[in-house]
């Protein structure tokens, strides 16, 4: 026993030490990072963010230098706070607050104290910076916009938040990241790669040369330039037309799916969200809950499409072989159905009509008949609706389009399940007539303007579409993503499109848009007047109809397909139709021949209309 004591103590000490070493060196990995913080200073070299060009090579977004005042809290020494605040033009409370935040983030890692100084502010400060230990200036680059338009498409950049830093270790406090639009969608391409320099420090925090001879240092890689599909001029013109109105214009090139213009109104100038101005301006835009300037109506606005949707029902009727182009259908100022003599109203027009003039005059009775037949062709209304839905969704309606912009909405195309639920099937039964509003694009049907523009492109292409997209080329190399380069087929056979297209052409010849012709261009279009409601003090109140228009041109060789949507603009040809003609002229001719239309649109405002439901007084609609 006496011989064993020291043996045992020695052995157990050995075990304890090996365990302790294992804990320190292998199990607890935090020491490795502590040592990095301790002994190695990491300096980042920020790359140039990629520029953004429009489809014609016009520069839209580039960079300007900016300077952040950074702090490493543990290196702070007492300093003249009053002078410092004066230099930076900030309040002392704010400085104290930001310093506290920086301590909380990390005493060793730099945090931003004052972001994004301009060149002039920087020049003034640079001289005096050495007086303030622990502070230094980090050069970054800010966006510099060469356009006042397309803020909703381009998006903006801002400082990363803590959640983003946690998610992606590439980002450090104070780094900039794309927050919306193309900047967000293509952040990884635009940002490039930071360069890293590691510098070995001694315990006095002095640099003693590059860490491991610079073996781990990297050079910054500049971001790549993007060419987007937007036509800056068309975009600007669209925004000009939309001034004082609310709504969206989405224009697509049918042969490629490229988005030519994506207008939302009201909107804001992109430069409002640059640098130090961003925060107050963003707050202002964010809290404007009435006009909602940050809401992209072209991508996110879900509206009842109204009459343009009739083109799809015509195509389904032909495909399902429940109507031919010759059959004439009577309209007695509406469509009567059901045992109680319910009526789907219509306006006055020649009757009876076959398909082409039916489209041109937008006859509700015609499409109600066709729609009902398409549903009732099947044994049960459930089968009929689901089959109808299959056709409709093949045009990209009722679900996310899969475009390359970070926001979007599904819209709504109802299925049998929806109606079963609504009518409490099988307790109660429902029939095709219960869904008759779908015939004219009202009722449960909802679509976003970009979905309608895409649907129009599919009609122009006679049966297929390319998923709409905003990216055209990276560093001059055209994109190759199959998502955007392989066409998607609709369920409608090619030959059925000709009569529908002819009907849309007749809209301009003898129909609802005959006064909107553009000399020399055969336009095909369809007006829409969509009823809509709001709630005032809990009561459902009808508002002035939305003015909707879809069109493509030229008929023979479509170059542009678009959807114009003007909230509360009354009938389709009034606002949306005029704008559609003007956009088409602008794109195809490059100039405006219908100055009369242009003057009318530019001189009319809908602000009064938008004020009505907020006024608290009774008001009239559709004036």
């Amino acid at each position: 026993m006496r011989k064993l004591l020291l043996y045992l103590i020695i052995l157990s000490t050995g075990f304890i030490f090996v365990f302790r070493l294992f804990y320190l060196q292998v199990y607890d990995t935090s020491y490795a990072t502590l040592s990095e913080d301790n002994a190695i200073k990491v300096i980042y070299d920020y790359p140039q963010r990629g520029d953004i060009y429009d489809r014609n090579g016009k520069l839209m977004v580039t960079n300007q230098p900016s300077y952040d005042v950074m702090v490493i809290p543990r290196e702070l020494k007492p300093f003249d706070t009053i002078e410092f605040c004066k230099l930076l033009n900030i309040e002392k409370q704010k400085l104290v607050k930001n310093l506290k935040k920086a301590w909380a983030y990390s005493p060793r890692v730099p945090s931003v104290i004052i972001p994004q100084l301009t060149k002039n502010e920087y020049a003034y400060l640079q001289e005096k910076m050495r007086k303030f230990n622990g502070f230094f200036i980090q050069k970054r680059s800010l966006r510099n916009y060469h356009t006042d338009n397309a803020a909703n498409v381009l998006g903006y950049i801002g400082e990363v938040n803590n959640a983003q830093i946690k998610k992606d270790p590439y980002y450090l406090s104070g780094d900039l990241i794309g927050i919306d639009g193309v900047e967000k969608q293509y952040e990884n391409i635009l940002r490039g790669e930071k360069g890293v320099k590691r510098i070995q420090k001694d315990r006095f925090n002095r640099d003693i040369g590059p860490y491991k001879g610079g073996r781990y240092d990297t050079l910054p890689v500049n971001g790549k330039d993007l060419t987007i599909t937007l036509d800056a001029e068309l975009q600007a013109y669209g925004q000009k037309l939309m001034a004082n109105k609310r709504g969206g214009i989405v224009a697509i090139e049918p042969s490629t799916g490229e988005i030519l213009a994506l207008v939302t109104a009201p909107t804001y100038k992109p430069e409002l969200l640059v640098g130090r101005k961003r925060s107050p301006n963003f707050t202002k835009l964010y809290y404007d809950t009435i006009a909602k300037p940050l809401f992209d109506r072209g991508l996110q606005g879900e509206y009842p499409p109204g009459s343009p949707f009739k083109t799809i029902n015509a195509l389904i009727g032909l495909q399902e072989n429940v109507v031919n182009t010759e059959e004439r259908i009577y309209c007695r100022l509406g469509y009567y159905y059901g045992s109680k003599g319910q009526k789907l109203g219509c306006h006055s027009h020649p009757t009876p009509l076959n398909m082409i003039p039916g489209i041109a005059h937008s006859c509700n009775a015609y499409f109600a008949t066709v729609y009902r037949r398409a549903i009732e062709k099947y044994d049960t209304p459930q089968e009929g609706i689901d089959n109808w839905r299959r056709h409709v969704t093949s045009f990209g309606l009722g679900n996310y389009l899969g475009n390359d912009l970070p926001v979007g909405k599904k819209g709504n195309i109802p299925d049998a399940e929806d109606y079963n639920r609504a009518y409490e099937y099988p307790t109660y039964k429902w029939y095709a007539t219960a869904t008759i509003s779908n015939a004219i694009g009202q009722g449960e049907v909802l679509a976003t303007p970009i979905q309608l523009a895409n649907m129009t492109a599919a009609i122009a292409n006679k049966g297929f579409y390319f998923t709409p997209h905003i990216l055209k080329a990276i560093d001059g190399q055209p994109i190759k993503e199959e998502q955007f380069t392989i066409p998607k087929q609709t369920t409608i056979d090619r030959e059925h499109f000709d009569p529908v297209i002819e009907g849309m052409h007749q809209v301009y010849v003898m129909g609802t848009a005959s006064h909107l012709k553009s000399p020399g261009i055969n336009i095909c279009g369809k007006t829409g007047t969509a009823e809509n409601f709001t709630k005032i003090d809990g009561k459902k109140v009808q508002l002035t109809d939305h003015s909707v228009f879809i069109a493509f041109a030229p008929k023979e060789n479509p170059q542009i397909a678009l959807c114009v949507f003007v909230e509360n603009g009354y009938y389709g040809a009034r606002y949306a139709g005029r704008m559609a003609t003007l956009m088409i002229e602008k794109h195809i001719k490059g100039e405006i021949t219908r100055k009369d239309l242009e003057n009318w649109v530019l001189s009319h405002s809908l602000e009064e209309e938008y004020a009505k439901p907020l006024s608290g007084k009774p008001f009239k609609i559709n004036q």
Partner: protein
Amino acid sequence: MPKSTLASIDWLTVLLFLLLVGFGWMNIYSASLEESNSFSIFDFTQVYSRQALFILLSVALIVITQAIEAKFYERFAGLIYIISLLSLLGLFVFGKTISGATSWYSFGSFSLQPSEFAKVATSLALAKFLSEMQTNIGLLKDQAKAFLIIALPALFIIPQPDPGSALVYAAFFFPLYREGLAAIYLIILFAAAFLFIATLIFNPIIVITTIAIVMIVILFKKRKQKPKIRYYLLSLIFVAGFCYSVNYIFNNVFEQRHRDRFNIVLGKEVDTKGIGYNTNQSEIAIGSGGWTGKGWKEGTQTKGGFVPEQHTDYIFSTVGEEWGFLGASLIVILFILLLLRILQLAERQKTIFSRVYGYSVAGILFTHFAINIGMVTGLLPTIGIPLPFFSYGGSGLWGFTLLLFIFIKLDANRVNEW
């Protein structure tokens, strides 16, 4: 040197010694290397050059220890002990003060630290005393004499002040115990250490109450054997007295820096800048080594000089950082092997003198090893004593070399004993 003696040297111990010294020098080289200076082994302002010189001189010492007749050590143990004590006393007159401690004699640019040699002298003296025919360690009188032999040098070292080096003299408990010191000393020692730590972590009342409850439980279970309750009461009173005096001494006699050192290890205080800086930096350096380390001369903490005293007391943190878990564990294993080998050799000695001396060597080396690595890895409070064969310093290296090689000589000579 006769050929037979050379062959009977325990070469395994020598090999372990050489590995530790060689690896130690590599780490001292890395820890003291400065980026700007070019390597020159003959530039004796450089720490690594000086250590290389110390190693060479220690080889000369080894030759001398082996050349001397083994009987010399036993015969002159008393004289060596007295000279050693005088050299410690002489410090009070001629000593040179380096960083607050008057522990050195200065000869030009080199200094000698007599306390490093006093351990050898004390080991020899204790071995001599215990091996004498009339000594009986079971007797209180002889116990007192043995304690005096051990305590005298320690008492001279404490006021230098160098309490760390004095603490090492506790290592002599191991040979005493091996030679028959009653186990009650051991139990009291451990109980005292346990109570000391428990009192600091909790407080006297909690500790005393807990022990009282334990005693009551034991009494209750043994009630049929009619235990003598007054013994239990007496021990409880002793425990209470001890706890309160620890509490009193800690709060009123200790200086703040001592309190801080304990509080940091006990986790009662977190301080990474002031007193806890050394330990914290040392843990960071070791912890950042990972499995295999950053490579020789590649340690960022070592290069940056973040760990104070890294080439002396904290040399093991360089091992941890640059050689990782594998390297650091290897060193721990080498030390354990060396210590166990020494114990094994001690047990095969035929004379009490050699055996006691062997146990002293193992005890001293173990105490240094345990306290040093315990401190560097943050398990023990900061107690500044070197890691044998590893830490920079001539006196230390020579002291340990003498200590070990005198034993190797004694061991090699055992065949001539009968």
